[in-house]
């Protein structure tokens, strides 16, 4: 079938959306951009294709009466098991790469000890893996780098201590290896992984066990549908560095405007807070951009700011919002300089402020900056759509809602769980249109 792909190369994440010719979204994929842009594009596309398969499974299976209300549950199980397969694959890759890196001056005489410690770490990581992908498990992030990294650090610290090795040394091995692993596209036959996942579901979820026979057929069919890349449009921060020709590139402003329009046709104002930039876009009823403003060269108050804070507190990005929600008051933070975010945090802690309250203040300060950019672009008009990675953060959303109400009265505020894909969605729509005309 003909597919249209939009790629949004963000400064922190790369997103892909795959669309059929009826402008129907089939799949979404996301990955870390913190590597090579070509690879990022490849991986995001790959992820979107995986996601597309699940959509196709859904289509094929929804005609089966037996699954009834349990279809979503089943697909969820299937996907988690698929992810687990992938995770184990990459973990094996990581282990190989780590071991290969244990050589040279720094490791002289310690090769064996480090090798053994690493082996012990990976045994633990493999053991833990299924639990990470269990039904109600909460993961720190969706990226291999983050999930594997945070567990590696914790486990490695214990093991290093036990075997009297330096923790720094272990970290160093990991830091080096993860880059390679991340930049290697997933290997192995994809189809096998779906099928293996199916087996795992059959084995672990008795309620689906009996159905496997009938499910396997449609799943196999779904796997056979050819997905042909008809047209691709790239957008975002990294687009200039890509080997795309000019016709395959749209500015991220247009893509975000159109993407938001597609999700919410009544949208007039769009706010996007990404890793390194914040944009406010005004669109007309047809999704055409009328005005836009972005932050200037200073990266203060963008998503990366939260990244620095998370690093400083050794927390996952997912955890910042919930912590801020526990605040009883909001500490005033005036500087949103990303680089000094950590210093600001320490400063406040030293003054005896509570973490949650500081966290609430940090979120508010980001949103205040965004409010200025919105104001610069002409203010908020009904409806308002918030997109970008930071829209996933509940504390940021809460502050935003409140400030919008205070400054612009009651307006409809749209936040889509898939809002991080807005730019890619717009790009995919441009790809679809490019073929039409």
């Amino acid at each position, binding site marked *: 079938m003909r597919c249209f792909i939009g790629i949004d190369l963000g400064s922190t994440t790369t997103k892909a959306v795959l669309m059929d010719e009826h402008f129907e979204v089939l799949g979404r994929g996301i990955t870390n951009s913190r590597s090579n842009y070509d690879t990022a594009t490849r991986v995001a596309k790959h992820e979107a294709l995986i996601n597309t398969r699940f959509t196709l499974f859904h289509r094929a299976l929804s005609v089966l009466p037996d699954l009834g209300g349990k279809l979503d549950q089943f697909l969820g199980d299937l996907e988690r098991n698929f992810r687990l397969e992938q995770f184990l694959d990459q973990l094996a890759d990581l282990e190989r790469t780590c071991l290969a890196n244990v050589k040279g001056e720094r490791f002289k005489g310690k090769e064996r000890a480090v090798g053994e410690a690493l082996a012990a770490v990976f045994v633990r990581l493999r053991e833990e893996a299924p639990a990470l992908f269990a039904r109600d498990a909460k993961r720190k992030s969706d990226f291999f780098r983050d999930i594997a990294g945070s567990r590696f650090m914790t486990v490695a610290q214990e093991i290093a201590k036990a075997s009297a090795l330096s923790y720094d040394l272990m970290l160093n091995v990991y830091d080096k290896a993860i880059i390679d692993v991340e930049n290697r596209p997933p290997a192995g036959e994809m189809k096998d992984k779906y099928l293996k996942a199916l087996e795992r579901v059959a084995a672990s979820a008795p309620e689906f066990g009996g159905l496997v026979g009938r499910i396997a057929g449609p799943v196999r069919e779904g796997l056979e549908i050819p997905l042909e890349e008809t047209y691709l449009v790239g957008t975002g921060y990294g687009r200039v560095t890509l080997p795309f020709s000019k016709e395959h590139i749209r500015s991220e402003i247009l893509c975000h405007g159109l993407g938001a329009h597609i999700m919410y046709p009544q949208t007039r104002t769009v706010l996007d807070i990404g890793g390194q930039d914040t944009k406010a876009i005004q669109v007309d009823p*047809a*999704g*055409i951009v009328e005005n836009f403003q972005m932050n200037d*060269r200073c990266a203060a108050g963008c998503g990366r700011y939260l990244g620095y804070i998370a690093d400083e507190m050794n927390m996952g990005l997912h955890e910042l919002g919930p912590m801020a929600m526990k605040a009883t008051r909001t500490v005033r933070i005036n500087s949103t300089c990303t680089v000094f975010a950590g210093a600001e945090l320490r400063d406040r802690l030293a003054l005896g402020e509570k973490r949650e309250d500081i966290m609430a203040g940090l979120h508010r300060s980001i949103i205040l900056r965004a409010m200025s950019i919105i104001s*610069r672009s*002409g203010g908020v008009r009904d409806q308002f759509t918030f997109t970008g990675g930071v829209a996933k953060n509940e504390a940021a959303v809460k502050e935003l809602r409140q400030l919008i109400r205070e400054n612009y009265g009651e307006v409809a505020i749209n936040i889509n769980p898939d809002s991080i894909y807005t730019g890619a969605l717009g790009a995919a729509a441009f790809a679809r249109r490019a073929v039409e005309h």
Partner: protein
Amino acid sequence: MSAMPVTEAVKEQSMLKQKEMIAANYELLATAREAGRKVVSTFVPGNLNELMMCFDVVNNLPEINAIQNGMRKKTGGYIMEAEKRGHSEDVCTYVKADIGAIAKGNLGPDGRPLPDPDLLLLSYTGCFTFMKWFELLRQQYKCETAMLHVPYEGDGKASKNMRDYVVKQLKEEVIPKLERVSGVKFDIDRLRQYLRESAKAEENFVWVLESAKKRPSPIDAYFGGVYYIGPIFTAFRGTADATEYYRLLRQEIEQRVADGLGPITPDGEMHQERYRLVVEGPPNWTSFRDFWKMFYDEGAVVVASTYTKVGGVYDLGFRHDPEHPLESLAEYCLGCYTNRNLPSRIDLIEKYVKEYEADGLLINSIKSCNSFSAGQLLVLREIERRTGKPAAFIETDLVDPRYFSPANVKNRLESYLQMIEQKRQGATPSAAAE
């Protein structure tokens, strides 16, 4: 801020003429000491060139030197030098480029040292930084300074009180100091003669600027414009050379109009005029060519700019007037672009967007220059509101290469032009919405 010279790309007659004129002035500067001529440093906006000519002094313009050095990519080092000497990172980089250059031998574009000034003529039009700049130079040179305080047109017009004040300062302060430093007695008839010459050049200059109303526009009124303002904004207004330059220029442009041609760019003829823009704010000099290229590669032509009005808003009708020499100089100083209040600036831009049938306004906001920049975001809003045309905002600096981020500028410019394009295609039904 001001005009700049020297390009290799296309050798039109007028360009060659301008090159000669500039080379000659640097020659005069380099040999001033031997020739026993006095050197007066002064600023571009509201400069008193005709008056200075009456005293046979040589005119040195630190802003132009900074531009020249910027285009030759020397200012990065000069600015660093000034910062090492205790100047703040925050302040105007023209000042720092000048101070840094002085610290490093103050070489002119021809590689010869520029002479120390005998007089700093601080005509203080449209910017407070000028005052500090010359105080800093005065501390360095310990030379005589003549201050001409030009009041700001806070209500959008020059009052009688302002004019009287400027004229009185010319009479009581500026002329006596020029006489004393140069040893030449002031002759008002000489001044009248120069002013007459100025008015002639001004007439043709305005014609050239207004030729951009044609479609396609035969000139780029920003990137090309900075060459066209060269003679009239700097050391040549009032000379026969300048008159000749503008006569030649006009002839050339008339020919382009007749041939239906667009502007010349460093890469040759510009092919298709896809976007017509009005630009507010000075250009960036350190990456001037790259900056320009971003425009002509996309088919964007600047049809009117405010920067070409910093040395006089001639297209609103002002001409130097030999019948009222000092009054006319006062009027000139008071009326320069950045000496007009913000509402007048907005009115002017609105007029340009409408009369030149532009697709929109682009603001190049210059970090250095508060005189231009403070308030530009309101300008943007007002223009959008009044004309219904989209406006965009980019940020660079005059001569500080650290503040020119090509990727950033290009991203915004492209987004802006794509937006204009998208709008133009109008309500192409978004199939996607269904």
